């Protein structure tokens, strides 16, 4: 038996009264009466979780519409396993269908704009959606312009694959088609970017594929950062122990130019030829956030009030996930977006009922990275609100890293994915 299962929710919604599934909620509405509408833009780790938890925690009293442009959810976390060949696209793809059982109205459409003054979301195919509060979980978009030659034409062959989906499958195909003895070049932008350890995990899993299938091939990492930005000693140990002579790492090596025809990338000092070029550009909050006037920091990220995730620029709009100007030591991770979503859902319900958001939020992060098909490592942290600095800060003495790579955490990493996908999607 479980907490608030779908069945329980349906039963409760039908009866119009709270079941034991909502123990702890003292106030029980006599009947389901809608107190307002929340539109959620973006069905990723942040948006889908927010939509579901708004429905559950408001006991169905808030109408929730989720706008997502893709048919299915494709997970960035675990997508490096597809590149390594141990999983396929179906393993990292999930349906939005179960969200409907919680009363979330899932609308497949493209948002063309947000009119925050009139509280309306404009859509490409459907009519405008009026809202009382808006949740925006737009993810990231890429600053291709920061790299010379990375134009629309070049983007057809030089992939970033930093949003899971067609580019994941396409990069896998490039790796499969590469000759043995070829060079795979991975370019990493300066932090902050989505998923700090992700590129290093990718290097490991591509190398693990090469080791198996194309043992004379090489992985060249060109990192704009001075050193590995996350789990450094753990990744370096894996490169040395598991992939000796196969992975070359260069720090302070920002790619400034790409030449798709010649198959080269260049830093300020050197030019490198590769058979597969995987260039991850610098990133900023997704285009929708930009259009809605939510970007407040460095022309890139959305500042939020960490008690509610409400934008510091636009009232009534809550921003989640990678698009936010991260709190200190807070990674841009799927797990973090999932936690942002619950913080926001709780706050929105209070605000829409004329009460205040909790003044003591707490969220936590566990982020797994595979270093091979069989072994993984983690970094974990717990974040609480500091009223003086008005931000979330890591709890001293809590959190930390794996002492060494191990097989148990490869099992837990896959378990995490199954559980968090279920937490957000049903």
């Amino acid at each position, binding site marked *: *038996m*479980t*907490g*608030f*299962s*779908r069945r329980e929710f349906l039963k409760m919604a039908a009866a119009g009264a709270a079941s*034991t*599934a909502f*123990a*702890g*909620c*003292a*106030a*029980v509405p006599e009947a389901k009466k809608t107190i307002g509408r929340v539109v959620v833009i973006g069905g990723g780790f942040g948006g889908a979780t927010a939509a*579901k*938890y708004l429905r*559950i*925690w408001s006991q169905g009293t808030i109408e929730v519409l989720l706008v997502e442009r893709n048919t299915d959810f494709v997970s960035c976390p675990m997508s490096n396993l597809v590149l390594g060949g141990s999983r396929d696209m179906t393993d990292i793809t999930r349906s939005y269908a179960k969200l409907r059982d919680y009363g979330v109205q899932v609308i497949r459409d493209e948002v063309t704009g947000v009119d925050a003054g009139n509280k309306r979301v404009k859509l490409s195919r459907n009519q405008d959606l009026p809202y009382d509060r808006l949740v925006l979980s737009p993810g990231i978009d890429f600053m291709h312009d920061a790299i010379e030659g990375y134009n629309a034409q070049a983007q057809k062959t030089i992939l970033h694959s930093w949003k899971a989906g067609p580019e994941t499958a396409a990069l896998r195909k490039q790796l499969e088609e590469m000759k043995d003895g070829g060079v795979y070049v991975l370019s990493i932008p300066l932090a902050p970017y989505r998923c700090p350890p992700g590129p290093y995990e990718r290097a490991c899993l591509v190398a693990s594929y090469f080791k198996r299938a194309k043992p004379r091939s090489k992985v060249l990492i060109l990192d704009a950062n001075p050193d590995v930005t996350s789990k450094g000693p753990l990744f370096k140990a894996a490169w040395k122990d598991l992939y000796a002579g196969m992975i070359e790492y260069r720090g302070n090596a920002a790619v400034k130019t790409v030449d798709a025809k010649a198959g080269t990338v260049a830093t300020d000092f050197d030019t490198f030829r590769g058979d597969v070029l995987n260039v991850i550009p610098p990133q900023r909050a997704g285009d929708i956030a930009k259009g809605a006037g939510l970007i407040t920091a460095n022309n890139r990220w959305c500042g939020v009030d960490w008690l509610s995730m409400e934008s510091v620029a636009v009232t009534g709009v809550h921003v989640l996930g990678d698009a936010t100007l991260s709190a200190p030591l807070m990674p841009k991770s799927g*797990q973090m977006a*999932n*936690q942002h979503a*619950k*913080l926001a859902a*709780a706050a929105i319900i*209070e605000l829409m009922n004329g009460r205040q958001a*909790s*003044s*003591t*939020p*707490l*969220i*936590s992060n*566990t982020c797994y990275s595979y270093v091979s098909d069989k072994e993984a490592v*983690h970094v*974990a*942290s*717990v974040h*609480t609100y500091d009223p003086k600095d008005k931000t979330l800060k890591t*709890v001293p*003495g*809590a*959190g*930390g890293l*794996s002492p060494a790579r*191990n097989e*148990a*955490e490869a*099992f*837990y990493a*896959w*378990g*995490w994915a*199954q*559980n*968090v996908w*279920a*937490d957000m999607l*049903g």
Partner: protein
Amino acid sequence: MRIPLVLAVMLALPLTAVAQGADPNLSRNLAATCSGCHNITGNALAGMPPLTGQPKEALLRTLKDYKEGKRPATVMHQLAKGYTDGQLELIAAYFAAQK
């Protein structure tokens, strides 16, 4: 005399829950931080053990053992240190109350 529902709920909860004061949903919100890894809105899936419906004392003992380093773990000993004993108690009570 009929006891009002709100009071009845408060009486049924441990002192720590009443002491949460400003945030009546504190235990729910704290428990939700577990649910990324331990699915709590459906069946717990591969890997992580289920939390809903666990007896409060057993769950609290496990969490405190993690926090105090008495129970081996891959990650839970690091996460448990981020919560006060009072917060761990709220979490254990919350999951115990779920059916």
